[in-house]
């Protein structure tokens, strides 16, 4: 067998990595290479250096160290029974590619994942070596996201967090049953234990106000995870319940939802149809409501039907339409918690409403200027010169606020 060129390996191992949704490079510490002779910086908010035609940003060099894998997870293009082309990078090759790309300002850093080869410890050790080499040998100060291999030794995990900005362990499936069916070799408790260990390390790294010495850094951009949506029968309620449990248990920064997308050489046990992108979008909106708007999962699910979110309207509007007794909300008097429940008002608009109303009573025009658009807001608020009257309870309200149905594509 002839050896693969680096470019061929890159093609195989980035193709294999494209199903991982996360590409974020934000939320880490501020850091740069000034005075170090190295390269790299992170300034808090990440930079998207390019965009693929799928509309997703390219911020990091997202690759697998290898797509050989001993596991046979049915949803995964890299499962051992699949016939995709296989390749394996050496540690040095990944380091070289990262530096070469970074120096040309193509990327913000590296997102490194891997198929599992030999053992979890062996695989994790290789990932850690890439990060260690970038940081120690090349003074690389750019962003590094490492995937945690569940069941790898806690010492490796500790070292990963020392070099990486972010760590992630994919939960993969919304339910343990789903995982058992589609990824028989993966154990849910091992995945969650890995997350718990990362959380423990993150807690330890939290500076204690009383103590003078700063604890050693650990993954300053925290941890995240990914869940595949639409590969099994789990409904949105199960998905959001899982997410809420993960946020509260492991202090995740983000849960990424990845609409299951058909993969080459797929098992016939999978739904081979275009990925449910709208469902994915609604889940992200719902996730946002849980994290920043004080909604709990049963409320969000109550806005939809049979455990599924409404695909035609956003989850906040869906909830409001089914909770009309709580509206209209007086923008000049209501507290923040209630304003957060008004469709069309975001956290920043609400901050501006709260600061403006200290000076004068808000009129509908003021709200329109602040919110940017008033159509969705109008039926749910009262202002100095506005009362929605019967509009709030109008049975045609939903139809008015729902976008015109689109002719489906005939392809």
């Amino acid at each position, binding site marked *: 067998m002839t050896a693969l060129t680096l470019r061929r390996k890159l093609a195989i191992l980035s193709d294999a990595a494209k199903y991982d949704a996360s590409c974020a490079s934000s939320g880490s510490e501020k850091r740069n290479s000034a005075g170090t002779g190295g390269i*790299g910086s992170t300034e808090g908010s990440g930079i998207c250096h390019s*965009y693929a035609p799928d509309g997703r940003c390219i911020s990091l060099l*997202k690759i697998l160290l290898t797509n050989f894998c001993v596991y046979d997870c049915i949803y995964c293009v890299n499962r051992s029974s699949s016939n995709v082309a296989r390749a394996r990078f050496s540690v040095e090759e990944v380091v070289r590619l990262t530096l070469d790309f970074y120096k040309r300002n193509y990327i913000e850093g590296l997102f490194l994942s891997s198929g599992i080869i030999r053992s979890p410890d062996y695989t994790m050790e290789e990932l850690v070596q890439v990060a260690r080499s970038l940081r120690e040998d090349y003074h690389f100060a750019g962003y590094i996201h490492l995937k945690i291999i569940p069941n790898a030794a806690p010492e490796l995990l500790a070292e990963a967090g020392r070099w990486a900005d972010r760590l992630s362990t994919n939960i993969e499936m919304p339910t343990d049953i789903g995982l058992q069916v589609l990824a028989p070799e993966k154990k849910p408790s091992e995945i969650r234990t890995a997350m718990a260990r990362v959380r423990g390390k993150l807690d330890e790294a939290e500076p204690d106000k009383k103590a003078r010495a700063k604890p050693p850094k650990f993954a300053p951009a925290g941890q995240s995870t990914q869940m595949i949506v639409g590969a099994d029968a789990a409904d949105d309620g199960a998905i959001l319940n899982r997410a809420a449990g993960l*946020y509260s248990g492991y202090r995740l920064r983000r849960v990424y939802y990845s609409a299951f*997308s*058909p993969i*080459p050489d*797929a098992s016939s046990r999978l739904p081979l149809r275009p990925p449910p*992108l709208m469902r994915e979008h609604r889940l992200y909106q719902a996730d946002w409501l849980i994290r920043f708007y004080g909604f709990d999962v049963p409320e969000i699910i109550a806005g939809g039907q049979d455990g599924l979110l409404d695909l035609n309207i956003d989850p906040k509007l869906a909830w409001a339409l089914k909770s009309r007794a709580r509206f209209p909300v007086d923008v000049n008097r209501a507290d923040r918690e209630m304003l957060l429940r008004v469709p069309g008002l975001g956290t920043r608009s609400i901050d501006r409403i709260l600061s403006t109303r200290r000076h004068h009573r808000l009129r509908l025009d003021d709200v329109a200027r602040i919110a940017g658009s008033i159509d969705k807001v109008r039926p749910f608020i009262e202002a100095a010169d506005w009362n929605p009257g019967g509009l709030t309870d109008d049975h045609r309200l939903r139809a008015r606020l729902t976008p015109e149905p689109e002719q489906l594509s005939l392809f």
Partner: protein
Amino acid sequence: MHVVRLQSPNDFAEWRGHARQLLAVDLSPDEVEWRMQDDASGLLDSVEPPVVRQVDRPVGFVPRQFLDLAEQAICHSDPARFAVLYRLLWDLQRDRQLLANAASGDTGSLTKWVSAVHRDSHKMKAFVRFKSIADDSGLERYAAWFEPEHYTLEATAPFFARRFDGMIWAIVTPYRSAYWDGESLAFGPGGQRSDVPLDDAVEADWKTYFSSIFNPARLKVSMMKSEMPVKYWRNLPEAELIAPLIRGARQMEAEMIERTATQPPSRHLRQQARTPEAAEDSAEIASLAEARVAVQDCRRCPLHQNATQAVFGEGPEHAEVMFVGEQPGDQEDLAGKPFVGPAGKVLDAAVAKVGIDRSRVYVTNAVKHFKFEPRGKRRIHQRPDGGEVQACKFWLKLEIGFVKPKVIVALGATAAYSLLGKAATISKLRGSPITLDDGTLLFVTNHPSYLLRIPDADVKAREQAKFEADLTLVRDAIAGMYARR
């Protein structure tokens, strides 16, 4: 009409110097025309300008916020910016609240310009593409050609200096160039695209990456264009791939869907043969150590689905005393060990106080998985129900069977329920031991977390004393057993 000719399109200090002079002589914005050095002369230039002297005293009032915004807005390419900034400065002398009215006229332009400049600078950070320059010196040098929409190079170059400290680089734009030699940042005249190499050795790798990371099943062209506007494409090497990728997407997706699974590779079959079948039959559990492993696969009740892991008991294999709590809490769930949280600390302290040797105690819980309700960033403990306690009895029985304690202490009602098989009130059961069928002595007392939840200090002290009294009985019972031996 007074004409001001500026040397630089975006030098705030230069503009400010002129503006101060104009303000000092009280020249209204209507009487001033702002031009760049090389702008064509106008008819009005012939009008004699008023005499303006250098001023070295404060000439007016301006809020700090104006300076910050104006410094950014002057980088905008709108030719009206100098005049509008001067008019704002002029109007601010009469209306100090002018900037608060964000929606109106000049203030609106100011805000709009600032955000356009900010965006342009951000896009420069993202879309500059360095190309390496090969020469014989062995030094790595890089150059980029970039066409900003506004005059944003000077303000953005320090970002590149911080980021590419160990690199020698230049960014050439049509109006100015920035150079970093590894130590300091310098600016020179603008240039042309041809000043920068056309090709770069790594570019082909980058294009390989760009086309491989794209998922044809998720095509979303409008999204891409809104974030990566087409005007930048001509200087992005990967942009030439976009059209063919879009054209081929639907076919690639169809092929992915059609290409169903083929025969797995022989490597897979070898691997499968190596994987041993997991032993799940609980009848085969022959030791405490085996039980500890097997409990991780427990699916006897639904609690395993949300808990991190099963938390098995801990302590000497043949402890004389076994403490049985309710279920692991948040910290126990994360750590995988029983009684490591706040309640565990209360228990440890009380045990030490009454004189029980903690190292000879086995601690465990009636239910091995944490039951909780997620609320924001916290997990709120929920009491396990009867079915869950019943299901988990299997593991507690195994533990008791292997450890064979002489004394068992049930901490709280859930533990008592599990061990007695019926609901019971702690106040009725505490104070004297119950002899179980196999002769083991069962003591019942409160769960230590109960003590943590009492707000009233007096009540708390009283309950603490009762708890310790219960433990004292336990201590005496163990001592009595020794005496009899």
